């Protein structure tokens, strides 16, 4: 199995520990991986701004960099959704390489659960964890049930986390409201963006969250920015970091 790591541009530069946690997890499950060095960005910032001509070269580059791999794994629902759901305008329907790359790009929890069939993480993590359901993972990739739809679905990330010893979860008032990041929205609509983030953080504070986690670092970057500015006592970790850390403290038999 030839697996490539796709580490989103801002994670590469600002959150290397999330990439390294992903590496640890893949190592743990015996998956050999590579990091194709030419990779940069999937093009989402441009595409979400409506600038399709500017997003195009990055989509082409992405397919070029990742073609030939069996799986491409990324610790980000948002970037995977970009590749899987929003690349069609850049390629023709018959473009074999693009079709394959898009199909083979997986979000980390999806890869662990649906490809590697991981059902539990044998390890300990003692804390009250608050889960932030990142919207693109939830409503684009359907990695869990959204509160609006009446269809039962299992939450891949929550199930993995729940299998860890010692972990408990905070109960939120609004289980999957958007954090307010939204890419350029965070700056273009700064007032609403920050109010949304503040409301999410307050919900977690009231629920007793000690560690705030999510599948997308972009949401966490925004929420952490607010948490640090307000000096709240909440630690922010990508779920890959929690899983990887749990593995280092094995369950006492």
């Amino acid at each position, binding site marked *: 199995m030839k697996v490539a790591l796709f580490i989103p541009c801002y994670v590469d530069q600002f*959150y290397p520990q999330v990439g390294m946690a992903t*590496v640890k997890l893949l190592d743990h499950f015996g998956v050999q991986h590579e990091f194709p060095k030419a990779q940069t960005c999937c093009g989402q910032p441009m595409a979400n701004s409506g*600038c399709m001509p500017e997003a195009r070269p990055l989509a082409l580059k992405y397919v070029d960099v990742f073609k030939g791999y069996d799986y491409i794994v990324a610790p980000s629902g948002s970037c995977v959704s970009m590749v899987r759901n929003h690349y069609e305008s850049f390629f023709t329907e018959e473009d074999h390489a693009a079709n394959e790359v898009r199909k083979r790009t997986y979000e980390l929890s999806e890869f662990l659960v649906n490809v590697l069939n991981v059902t539990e993480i044998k390890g300990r993590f003692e804390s009250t964890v608050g889960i932030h359901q990142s*919207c693109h993972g939830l409503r684009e990739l359907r990695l869990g049930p959204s509160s609006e*739809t009446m269809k039962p679905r299992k939450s891949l990330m929550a199930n993995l986390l729940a299998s860890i010893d010692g972990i408990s979860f905070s109960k939120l008032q609004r289980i999957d409201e958007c954090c307010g990041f939204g890419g350029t929205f965070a700056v*273009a609509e700064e*007032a*609403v963006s920050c109010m949304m983030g503040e409301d999410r953080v307050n919900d977690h504070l009231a629920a007793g969250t000690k560690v705030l986690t999510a599948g997308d670092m972009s949401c966490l970057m925004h929420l952490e920015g607010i948490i640090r500015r307000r000096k709240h006592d909440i630690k922010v970790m990508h779920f890959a970091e929690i899983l990887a850390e749990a593995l280092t403290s094995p369950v006492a038999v």
Partner: protein
Amino acid sequence: MSHPTLAQDFVDNKPRAQWHDKALWFVREKRDRMAASVPEWEDLRSHASAIKMHTMSQLPTYLEMFEAKAKALGVHVHWAADGDEHNRIIHDILQKHNAKKVVKSKSMLTEECHLNPFLEKNGYEVVDTDLGERIVQLREETPSHIVLPAIHIKKEEVGECFHKHLGTEKGASDPKYLTEAARGHLRERFCSADAGITGVNFAIAETGGFVVCTNEGNADLGVSLPKLHIACMGLEKVIPRASDLAVFLRLLARSATGQPITTYSSHFHGPREGSELHIILVDNGRSGILAKPEFRRSLGCIRCGACMNTCPVYRRSGGHSYESTVPGPIGSILTPLRTPEQHSTLPFACTLCGSCTDVCPVKIDLHHQLLAMRGFLDRKKLLGMSKKMSMKFLSGLLSSTWMFTTAGSAARTALRWMPRFAIYNPLNGWGKQRELPEPPKKSFREQYADNNKNSGRPS
């Protein structure tokens, strides 16, 4: 003005913005409970979506069928290409009947056509009879929500407004008392009205009849007393069969307010004896939307307002920040399609969270259309210079791996060494209320290479 500016004003009054958010979230939660009580909810949505898509694919046929059937029932059918024509038609009908006093039940279409100011200018008295609409009318405002027009107004403010206009006691804010006062006030208007105007929720091609849904019964009263009923509908309101109502009526009120069904679902099939019934079919940009495949599904909207109630941005910026008759997610598609220049910030008043898409009873892919709308504005060169230039720059930077890694490393170094005041300067929109990430010494790609070196793996 732009959405961000108006939204900033709204958020500046934080307690009020929080109150507004909570009031609408309450409605969203009611909707969730109602939806959950219908085991076949998702099937109903799919069904509704399929009916709408089918109808849109053969809209002219169904409209003509509706027209023929309605005429056979004795209805006068009119066609209006735009809002002005719609208003003129109403003016003509009213003139012919020498009608001066008009009562109107809720109709977003007449709002869209600016009927009230037009009629007032021409010397008519128009009274909105939906309680919420009457409140905004007395306050000389426009509705801030399509189902809950006065959701932005607190009961104390309603009390003040009624004290001024209806003579209620000063300082009174008990909703029951105020509602009673409004009822008395409206009753007089109903009794003296010469004509009643209503909207249309569903027009049935098969029968030529139509259905108006209200919670206050004001549509019924407004058209039962006067001898003239004018119903205004957008072209997209037609549905093929009467039995399709079984799908839409179950979805509409549950999605809108979390009720099993609207209190009044009034069916009109032809005029009452001794009175006249007119229907005006209005295009006003709808056929243009029909011709754009990427936005066609937006015409399926049944105006339930659920996408507004769920939208985290709408709840925190208020309906008026959209400067559009229909605000919120669906408004941010429909309105820029018509007036892209004035409304180019609306599709960006959205995080693409997708909650609207999941809540919509007719399964309009709202957040994908909002994304497509951004591309539409780009093609019309309406994104604004700074956005376009920064995206061009970013695209160039990210296209080259070397430039990207060099810039990334430079940015991390700068963030580590620059003094705080230089980083958190007034131009840094991110940093006004948020910290930037703490820059690591080494990027992931560097750490990955180190890791491989240490473990003897090729990097």
